[in-house]
């Protein structure tokens, strides 16, 4: 075996493992009935944020994306430290919280909610230090969250500092503008759909529990 091949061996094994896991692991990349995608002939807007070497203290907010005044549709990938949703569970939740909605200069029109997440177990690492991958659909009209999204943030709702690993990232792919928050405002705010200790709702299509599959996938 040459040096080149030796260097590539872990990569090849990893790729093969991923392919087999996806092939036999079920509907990892489910398609959702409400996903709009990008219109033909257009290029989606992608934002890739590396979280390595970042530590968020309790209560810290990390703004990731702001498309005001337009509310948008798209897709979010989050790779972050994780823990089981409950003791003994094989579905993991991120220790950090992903929130989305609209942050307005006038708080009456502000509305931020926890984003429903889909846990991608096939490419998550649950041994210490853990780091799990999640997908989210912006907006998600079936599973909840804010209906009109201009802002996406990370927030530490735990009572401990959260340090991200070397390859933890957020990737935000915005695919279409759905309207203007100026004409479709939120009212009676600020509406904040989270509090200390809260976690994102996490769905898992690939465990044996049919009750945490969420709605709208095929």
């Amino acid at each position, binding site marked *: 075996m040459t040096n080149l091949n030796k260097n590539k061996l872990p990569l090849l094994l990893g790729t093969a493992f991923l392919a087999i896991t996806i092939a036999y692991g079920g509907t990892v990349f489910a398609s959702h009935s409400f996903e709009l995608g990008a219109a033909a002939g257009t290029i989606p807007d992608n934002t890739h944020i590396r979280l390595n070497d970042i530590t968020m203290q309790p209560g810290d907010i990390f703004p990731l994306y702001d498309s005001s005044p337009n509310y948008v*549709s798209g897709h979010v990938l989050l790779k972050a430290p994780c823990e089981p949703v409950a003791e003994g569970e094989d579905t993991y939740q991120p220790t950090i919280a992903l929130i989305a909605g609209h942050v307005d200069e006038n708080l009456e029109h502000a509305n931020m909610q926890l984003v429903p997440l889909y846990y991608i177990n096939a490419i998550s690492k649950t041994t210490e230090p853990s780091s799990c991958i999640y997908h989210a659909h912006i907006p998600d009209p079936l599973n909840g969250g804010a209906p009109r999204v201009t802002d996406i943030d990370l927030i530490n709702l735990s009572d401990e500092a959260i340090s991200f690993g070397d390859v933890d990232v957020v990737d935000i792919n915005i695919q279409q503008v759905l309207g203007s928050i100026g004409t479709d405002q939120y009212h009676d705010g600020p509406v904040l759909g989270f509090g200390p200790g809260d976690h994102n709702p996490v769905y898992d299509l690939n465990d044996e529990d049919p009750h945490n599959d969420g709605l709208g996938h095929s």
Partner: protein
Amino acid sequence: MKHTTLSLLGVMAAVTLISVIASQEAYAHGNIKIPLTIANGEQRTVQVVLGHTNEPSYGNEPGTWDGIHGVDITVRDADTKLPIKTANLKVDKYFFKNQKKVDKASVPFNPTDADAKDLGVTAGAVFGQPGKFLARQMVIDGIYGYRVYGTVTYFDGTNVPVDFTGFCSDASKFNSPGFSGGYGCIGDIKDTKFPGKKHKMKD
């Protein structure tokens, strides 16, 4: 030279006509909101938007205006504005010649009062435009209204019955309860001509 001048004048007249038409403010479409309960027991709302394509709309005038203004229906989730791609919709089309006929007709709307009708027309999905449904037609000057009925399939597969009537603004008295906003009736393209019959010109 004379021929060139005439051609130039023709082009300028056409450009002026198009500019006048294009600069008019488009009417907003009317819409109705229909509540539903999804599989997890939560409430959602479907919004069905009704109007004519390419508003403001004018009746066919050979050589001037094609009068092609289809019945334009948009189906979407009311809160997110995400388009809903699956729907099976039909349209009953009604026509009144003028305002007098509308004023004479009683409320609630009785289809026999209309001067013309075309029933059970399919509003087909528009290719490449999710949530858009269209019943093509060429219109004449007058007052149009549509009953839209069928089923919208929400994102989780829940079927939502749709049945409402929305007339253009001059006959809004016939609208179903809950139909809000409106769309313009079919005008006469000659009314946009300047100088036209209404304008006095110096000798």
